[in-house]
């Protein structure tokens, strides 16, 4: 079991709504961004003496830009429906992690400076001045929100806490208070092309290694091409797919699927990252700048289609925003969705009977599926409502003999976040990550006991890394988390494959 210097929550048979422990996570806040990381993103390096004025100006700017933000700040009636829906509240018991309380941290300042009642009678309407203490609370608690939007599913007004938390982070960045993890990473994308900072030669070396491995395993020459001009498909995938486990097993799977489909494809060094942390920090400008690299790579490589690998928030940016962010995409082949998810790609080949599987290759596992928040609640797949839930499950069923879902109240649009999304996947936030994983792991634990589930599949790089790290805190094994295309990779029968196993 991993060592923890905090109490790891217990996993119970039935979900319990905890008794509140005020201030229990007050101490949690991530490392601050250095001035050099801030400036690379167009933000001031540090707090200026007139920071209050600057922050309120930024809030005013955002209220003018996003009508939704004002509606969310105005419309809460304190009904309490959201209070027990956040995994961070359930795992930490800190009442400021109730979505309504998290929203109120910004709302009370909004009321004080942007509403008549708050300007005249602040105490009567819960309006408060923007003080240093308030800013500290913002920094702490807006980095205990993974922007997963589970609370918004239950809010009768549809208030989206994620958008409030993004706005708060944008305001903080604009006054020089940024988070090291996100901002350093965005800087690396600008400088090198991906979150990890993997330069072209390292990418090439890694991909050649994969080609060798697949050839050794199967006897088939599956290619993992890089910067191949004129390829039909550009694959944009999180850089964790090159680097980490079980991510890389998913990447191997994508390559095998493309190989069997007989289409030419390529990765790009310039756009070697699907993730877009610009969204996490609420910065439209940075989100656009990161996304532009995909457009530039697509044009340069003269591809006809763009396919995204397994990455949760990347798919939100891709599915929901790519067209308005960096479109139009009129140079791509209009017969295919722009962009397409790798799961859609694989699923359609399965539908057409073009892929053959030996499901028994996954018989050492009993699977369940973790719906990643940004895929589940902020996007879609395929041409039917709910495709984002059904398509990944259909792929698992096509490649595995044993599959069971977790409890209904913890999957699909009600899925619990892994606990590490939204820019929180950093070691300095380990306590909130471990505690926030409790609701998801409680559901996993139950299905392990009841159905004998051994592994959980996911289609998000953050989820995969987060579970690898937090499962051991709960006495589970780090390799219980797998990529969906890892299952595909295990089961797929390649044409001409050695059949000696």
């Amino acid at each position, binding site marked *: 079991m991993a060592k923890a210097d905090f109490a790891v929550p217990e996993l119970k048979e039935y979900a319990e709504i905890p008794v509140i422990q005020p201030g229990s996570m007050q101490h949690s806040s991530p*490392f601050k961004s250095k001035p050099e990381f801030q400036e690379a993103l167009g933000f001031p390096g540090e707090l200026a003496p007139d920071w209050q004025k600057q922050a309120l100006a930024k809030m005013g700017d955002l209220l003018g830009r996003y009508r939704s933000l004002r509606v969310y700040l105005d419309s809460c009636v304190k009904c309490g429906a959201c209070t027990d829906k956040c995994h961070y509240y359930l795992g930490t018991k800190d009442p400021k992690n109730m979505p309504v309380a998290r929203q109120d941290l910004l709302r009370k300042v909004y009321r004080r400076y942007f509403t008549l009642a708050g300007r005249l009678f602040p105490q009567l309407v819960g309006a408060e001045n923007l003080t240093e203490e308030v800013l500290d609370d913002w920094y702490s608690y807006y980095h205990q929100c993974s922007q997963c939007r589970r609370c918004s599913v239950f809010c009768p007004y549809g208030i989206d806490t994620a958008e409030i938390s993004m706005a708060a982070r944008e305001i903080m960045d604009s006054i020089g208070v940024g988070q*090291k*993890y996100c901002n*350093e*990473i965005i800087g*690396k994308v600008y400088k090198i092309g*991906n*979150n*990890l*900072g*993997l*330069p072209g*030669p*390292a990418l090439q*070396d*890694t991909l050649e*290694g*994969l080609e060798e*491995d697949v050839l050794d395993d199967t006897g088939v020459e599956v290619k993992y091409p890089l910067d191949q001009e004129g390829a039909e498909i550009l694959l944009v995938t*999180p*850089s*964790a797919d*090159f*680097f*980490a*486990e079980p*991510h*890389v097993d998913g990447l191997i799977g994508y390559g095998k699927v493309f190989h069997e489909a007989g289409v030419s494809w390529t990765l790009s060094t310039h756009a070697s990252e699907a*993730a877009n942390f610009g969204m996490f920090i609420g910065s439209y400008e940075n989100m656009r700048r990161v996304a532009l690299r995909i457009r530039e790579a697509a044009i340069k490589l003269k591809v006809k289609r763009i396919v995204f690998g397994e*990455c949760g928030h990347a798919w939100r940016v891709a599915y929901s925003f790519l067209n308005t962010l960096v479109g139009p995409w009129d140079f791509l082949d209009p017969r295919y969705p722009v962009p397409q998810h790798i799961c859609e790609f694989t699923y359609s080949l399965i539908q057409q009977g073009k892929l053959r599987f030996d499901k028994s290759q996954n018989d050492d596992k009993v699977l369940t599926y973790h719906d990643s928040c940004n895929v589940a609640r902020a996007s879609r797949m395929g041409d039917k409502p709910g495709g984002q839930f059904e398509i990944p499950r259909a792929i698992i069923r096509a490649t595995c003999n044993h599959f069971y879902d977790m409890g209904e109240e913890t999957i699909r649009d009600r899925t619990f976040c892994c606990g590490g999304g939204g820019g929180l*996947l950093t*070691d*300095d936030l380990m306590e909130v990550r471990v505690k926030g994983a409790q609701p998801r792991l409680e559901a996993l634990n139950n299905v392990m006991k009841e159905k004998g589930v051994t592994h959980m599949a996911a289609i998000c*790089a*953050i989820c*995969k*890394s987060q579970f690898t790290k937090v499962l051991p805190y709960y006495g589970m094994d*780090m*390799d219980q988390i797998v990529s969906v295309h890892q299952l595909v990779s295990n089961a797929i029968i390649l044409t001409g494959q050695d059949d000696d196993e």
Partner: protein
Amino acid sequence: MPIEVNGKSLEVDEEGYLANINDWEPGVADVMSKEDDLTLTDEHWDIINYLREYYEEYQIAPAVRVLTKAVGKKFGKDKGNSKYLYGLFPYGPAKQACRYAGLPKPTGCV
């Protein structure tokens, strides 16, 4: 908060990674591992030295699979897997071993 290595004071970041990779000397790994209550064996040094060689060539730590494969080739097939590496470096080969080797921390969704 600098660390003391052979009488020299070396700058490290909030997470204990060397601020300047050129400050590295074998003593750095000794000091850091002592703080983690870990005794470095020849097996640990094989990994640390490989990480440094790879970094020298590619300016990045090797991917986990690249590392396990290289270790398997060099030191025997039974050692070419993450289990072996986690056995040596319980906080993860990428993070703990990179820190001892003076490499920057791998960032991103890892």
